[in-house]
């Protein structure tokens, strides 16, 4: 069901959970405080509707809870685990990476792990270095995992439903800064068409800007400003970082001949490098300029307001990169 206009990103997540729980009794929700709705209400109402057997508060034991969800998934349940912040996934990577991601392959195809991990990420509000990271690049490096990062309210719900229905472990990353955003108009999104496909958010001819998560709206703002000066960027949102829809990205760059990759993670070692490597290979002969990357400086996330603002790339960062790509200073 496409969420109504005016639905926030957070409500869309909540609705998607509810719909999947209604559709499939094997969908279970687990996490800290999920039975009371979690810190922002993403799981609000679910315990009341589906009972605390299916909406399970867990102790603060991230590693074990993720392992437990994997074990339940091996038997055919479809757990949706909330790791409050992706910063805390550091506590669960043995289970997620060594076990969850590998069991299908290691078992020679005998096992499968239909698990979804929802987690908040990204910078907002001065929460500092332990509640603001963007660690998607780590997980996109792990064979057996899928990594999804929605950028709009409507798509958040559709992508989450697709993630829950997927038979593989999926890391589903929600930018806290998007939680209270709404889409300009309700976007009809089918569940099936989302996972593994990129989406062109704004067509343009001059430069392709591949943006993820909250950076998509940042790129769209940059597009407005650039358009005013006659530069038309094409904004493409990969939506799924692993697997990656290279075709859509490459088609865009083949057209524009120039590309900027924008994410909120620190640039060094970020998913941008992977995108650059794949794109330059796919469209080498079309490239009129090196592919540029926009992201955070190589530093932990600072807490103070001004430092935080300096840390997060904004539309000016994108505009500067686009101009540089076009050879205009």
């Amino acid at each position: 069901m496409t969420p109504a206009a005016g639905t926030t990103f957070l409500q869309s997540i909540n609705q998607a959970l509810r719909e999947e729980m209604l559709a499939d009794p094997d969908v279970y929700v687990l996490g800290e405080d999920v039975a009371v709705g979690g810190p922002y209400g993403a799981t609000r109402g679910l315990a009341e509707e589906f009972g605390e057997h299916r909406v399970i508060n867990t102790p603060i034991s991230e590693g074990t809870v993720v392992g437990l969800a994997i074990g339940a998934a091996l038997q055919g349940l479809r757990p949706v685990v909330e790791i409050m912040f992706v910063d805390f996934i550091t506590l669960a990577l043995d289970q997620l990476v060594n076990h969850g991601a590998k069991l299908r392959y290691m078992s020679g195809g005998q096992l499968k792990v239909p698990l979804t991990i929802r987690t908040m990420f990204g910078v907002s509000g001065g929460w500092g270095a332990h509640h603001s990271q963007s660690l998607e690049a780590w997980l996109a490096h792990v064979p057996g995992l899928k990594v999804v990062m929605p950028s709009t309210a409507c798509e958040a719900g559709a992508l989450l439903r697709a993630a829950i229905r997927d038979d593989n472990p999926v890391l589903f990353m929600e930018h806290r800064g998007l939680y209270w955003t709404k889409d300009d108009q309700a976007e009809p999104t089918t569940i099936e068409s989302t996972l593994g496909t990129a989406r062109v958010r704004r067509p343009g001819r001059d430069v392709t800007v591949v943006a993820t998560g909250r950076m998509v709206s940042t790129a769209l703002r940059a597009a407005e400003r650039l358009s005013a000066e006659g530069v038309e960027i094409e904004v493409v949102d990969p939506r799924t970082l692993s697997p990656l829809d290279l075709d859509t990205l490459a088609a865009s760059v083949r057209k524009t001949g120039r590309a900027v990759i924008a994410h909120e993670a620190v640039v060094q070692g970020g998913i941008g490098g992977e995108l650059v490597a794949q794109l330059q290979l796919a469209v080498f002969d079309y490239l009129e300029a090196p592919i540029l990357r926009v992201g955070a400086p190589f530093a932990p996330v600072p807490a103070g307001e001004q430092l935080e603002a300096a840390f997060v790339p904004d539309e000016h960062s994108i505009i500067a990169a686009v101009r540089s790509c076009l050879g205009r200073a």
Partner: protein
Amino acid sequence: MDKQTAASLLDTMYLIRAFEEKVSELYAKLEIRGLLHLGIGQEAVAAAVCSFLDRDDLLYSSHRAHGHCLAKGGDPRRLLAELAGKANGYCGGKGGSMHISAPEVGFMTATGVVGGTIPLALGSALFCRERRPGRIAVVFFGDGAMNMGAFQESLNIASLWKLPLLFVCENNGYAEFTPISAHTLVERASEHAAVYHIPTVTVDGNDLLAVLQAVEPAVARARSGDGPSLVECLTYRMRGHYEGDPSKYRELSELQEWKSKDPVARFVAWAIDAGLLDETERDAIEAAARSKVEAAADFAREGPVPERDAVSRGVYA
């Protein structure tokens, strides 16, 4: 206890109380942002524990850290400036409330990760054992950290290696919005410590005297190289989990009940009763605390904003 000790303990508690009330006020006025966890109601634990510590004992804290930092001798001005993101804050505005560091007074670091500082404290204790016999490390954590594997791993190593370490559990009955009974059947950190042959006791954390009594031998034991102890303090946070949390998960009656056990008021009553304090002295101590905090607020307000390019500086030594 002598008059001076009583005054000094009360001084610490009032300073924390006044500081936290100011933080709450500045947050409401949007002068401070971030994720703030106040320890109003838990002051006796910080004050009692730190009263046994010297500047070069090494303290680690949790996400609810302001009181610990002040009790260890942290400067309220630099602490508040840090919360306000200013360049003259302890961390130059980079750390914020959950990542305060004031090593000059032996306050090593707070953490945004539940249980995250417990292993770190072990390492500082190892350092003390090897290089500064007589010095100790101390770590504060909440009841929520009891179910983190790192806590158990740390109890094991601390006891095995006889580290000069004091574990202080501030068991306030809740982890975020969930009562401890929903997280474990083992509602006492002291039960965990006992398995590892770590001397331990659970006390009323709102009774400053009880905490003092529990901590004194534990600190002595660590100082003399006999190994770690764990002191568990049953207490209560009077405000929400974080500033802005409406605390719907708690009954008003529960709050009322704990209000009547306010650790500051209780100590004041006891001290007056014991002839260690009179009303005038009490008023003076409170007033002094409040004026220190006002000065801190001015300091923070007037503090310079960090330079923009500090953002990418200071990542490496």
